[in-house]
């Protein structure tokens, strides 16, 4: 389209942002010493760290041109939201700069500006203004906004009587009509029912075609993989990886592993090793659905367990389990494990799953305990790319035949 190449986009250049740990002076009593420090020149400079300060975002640089979409992913506390707030202009960086070329709009908490006592119609105008639209612009687009939201019948009802799904739909409908050149999106695609999410996705997919520069912040890898060709992985405020989304997925999952390994200090059975390989024996994190994989893990036992067994559990990002089993359920005898023993499990699985992220948990079971004890010792996130044509969450390896039934012949025979 015409906007491609017209120079719109985002350039983030070595952006740093510091935060303060613990309480900032919150009452006037603390102001006086702070002011005194500043007057005597002992205050901390803007671009240096004070005693309780830390860098929430450190040296982040990237570029998004018109028609491009960049995903930003990272574990909690990686600096995703801070980066997003710096991009929107809510916070200013302490070092470096961000240049936004083109009309900037943000899809963040689409219903944040709603007032419960106002009607749907009144809130459309209010929210439109909050998102940067002129009153006339909202009036012109009112019909389309209402159409998109599907809440016509409740347009003159106060939104406090709306369901949360209706609120989200109305909020998104307003936001979807703001005609941006540069768009920042935060996690909103996780609201609403399936049909609405589909609508959101197709809207988002259309944006790149219209030449909008999009930054999409999420911790849902599959949503990013679907919308963004390029992804930036953030960890502790710094860029861990910036490049194609396929490689970014591997980088992100190995990052999650490191974090999981750090968390292994708690008492209980501890993880010795954990890996997932494909049929050729290559360690991998991204699989196609229907692919065969081998999970190998070993656990060091911290005390005696009379009937010890290891199990695996796969869970979707929603937390719902897609599959779980234990060695005992598969008729492997339990082990009488002594403190210090290392127990190994090898499991072969066929990933007959729909596309998306799956968290693979290693679980220790002691069937002698009453009630039997279960303990999760490790998690690894894998990504399943949907390569078979089916719907739902599991592939049931179907075989089908379709033909025109020969209705007359059977009766006469």
């Amino acid at each position, binding site marked *: *389209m*015409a*906007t491609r190449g*017209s*120079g*719109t986009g985002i350039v983030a250049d070595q952006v740093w942002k510091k*935060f303060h740990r613990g309480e*900032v*002076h*919150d*009452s*006037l*009593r603390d*102001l006086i010493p702070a002011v005194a420090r500043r007057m005597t020149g002992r205050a901390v400079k*803007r*671009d240096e760290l004070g005693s309780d300060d830390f860098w929430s975002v450190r040296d982040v640089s990237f570029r998004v041109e018109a028609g491009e979409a960049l995903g930003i992913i990272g574990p909690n506390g990686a600096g995703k939201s801070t980066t997003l*707030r*710096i*991009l*929107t*202009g*809510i*916070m*200013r*960086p*302490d*070092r*470096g*700069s*961000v*240049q*936004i*070329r*083109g*009309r*900037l709009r*943000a899809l*963040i*908490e689409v219903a*944040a*500006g709603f*007032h419960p*006592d*106002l009607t749907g119609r*009144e809130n459309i*105008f*209010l929210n*439109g*203004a*909050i*998102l*940067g*639209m*002129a*009153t006339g612009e909202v009036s012109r687009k009112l019909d389309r906004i209402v159409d998109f939201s599907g809440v016509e019948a409740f347009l003159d009802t*106060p939104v406090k009587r709306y369901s949360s799904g209706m609120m989200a739909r109305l909020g998104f409908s307003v936001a979807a009509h703001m005609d941006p*050149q540069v768009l920042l999106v935060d996690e909103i695609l996780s609201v609403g029912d399936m049909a609405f999410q589909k609508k959101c996705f197709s809207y988002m997919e259309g944006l790149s075609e*219209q*030449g909008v520069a999009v930054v999409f912040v999420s911790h849902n890898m599959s949503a990013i993989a679907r919308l963004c060709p390029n992804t930036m992985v953030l960890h502790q405020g710094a860029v861990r990886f910036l490049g194609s989304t396929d490689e970014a997925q591997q980088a992100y999952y190995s990052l999650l592993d490191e974090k999981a390994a750090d968390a292994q200090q708690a008492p209980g059975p501890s993880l010795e090793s954990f890996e997932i390989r494909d049929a050729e024996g290559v360690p991998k994190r991204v699989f196609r659905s229907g692919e065969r994989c081998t999970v190998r893990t070993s656990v060091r036992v911290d005390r005696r367990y009379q009937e010890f067994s290891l199990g695996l559990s796969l869970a979707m990002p929603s937390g719902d389990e897609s599959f779980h089993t234990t060695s005992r359920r598969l008729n492997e005898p339990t082990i009488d494990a002594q403190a210090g023993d290392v127990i190994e499990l090898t499991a072969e699985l066929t990933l007959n799953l729909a596309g998306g992220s799956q968290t693979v948990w290693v679980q220790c079971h002691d069937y002698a305990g009453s009630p039997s004890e279960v303990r999760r010792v490790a998690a690894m996130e894998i990504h399943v790319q949907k390569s078979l044509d089916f719907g739902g969450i599991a592939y049931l390896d179907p075989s089908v035949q379709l033909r025109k039934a020969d209705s007359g012949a059977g009766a006469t025979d």
Partner: protein
Amino acid sequence: MSNTRPVVVQVWSSSANRIRVFATLAETWRDLIEYRHLLFQLALRDVRIRYKQAVMGFAWAIFLPILIVLSGIVVRYAMSYLSGTTLDTDIIAGLAIKSIPWAFFVGAIQFSSGVLIANRNLVTKIYFPREVLPTASVLAQCFDSAIGGLAVLAVLPLLGVSYGWAALWIFPLLAALFLFTLGSSLLLSSANLFFRDVKYIVRLLLTFGIFFTPVFFEPEMFGGTGAQLMMLNPLAPILEGLRLAVVEGHDLSQTLMVTGTGADILAWSPWYLVYVFALAVFGTAAAAVLFHRLEFLFAEYI
């Protein structure tokens, strides 16, 4: 999508350490103009929610002024009883004209000082110039007070007031009141975001302020020095000016002396106008600059 307009370029970088007053003011003004639709919608929201689900509806706009006038009548009745004079209609007319700006100031400060915290959701999530929030609350209060003000202006002739040319002083006085209130709400709303004690200070200020502001009485009742001290309160010259111009028909560019118990007392000097305007203009400019410098910290400290 054809786009002939030039591409808007915004740069976010750490704010300079030097304060550039005029550049900051110009930027604030541009921001408010650019976000005028939001300003209007937020003011409209405030007006709407004040009257939705409220049984008395627009009667609330004149309820507080009526209460102020009734309290004033009680106070003035006691005074005239002690001094053996009668409570004439001029006094009631003066109370009525002063009740509106006082109610405006109280209402505007009450709503605007907490407005940033009340809209925490917007402040932490969505970018727009934060000046819009307190300014919109002051504008919403203007709407309320306009209803009350028109009601008072309609009632005053019944109390024997006839409007002369001097009544035109209303406009500059109201402009000063608006500016001063806006400056106060910018200052208090941002201060309240950083220091929660400001909320209590505001509450005290609004409760006891009426004793230090000539609403129920006239400054000259305190004698020469007392009157001048009282007039240091920036609201005092505004309220007194309104009463003198509208009820007494006094031209505010002229000095006014009244006979007190001993010597003559200075009831009005044109310098009071200069004082109030200087304070309103420079004070509000200072508050706006401060607010604009701080607003990028709001999301972090709220």
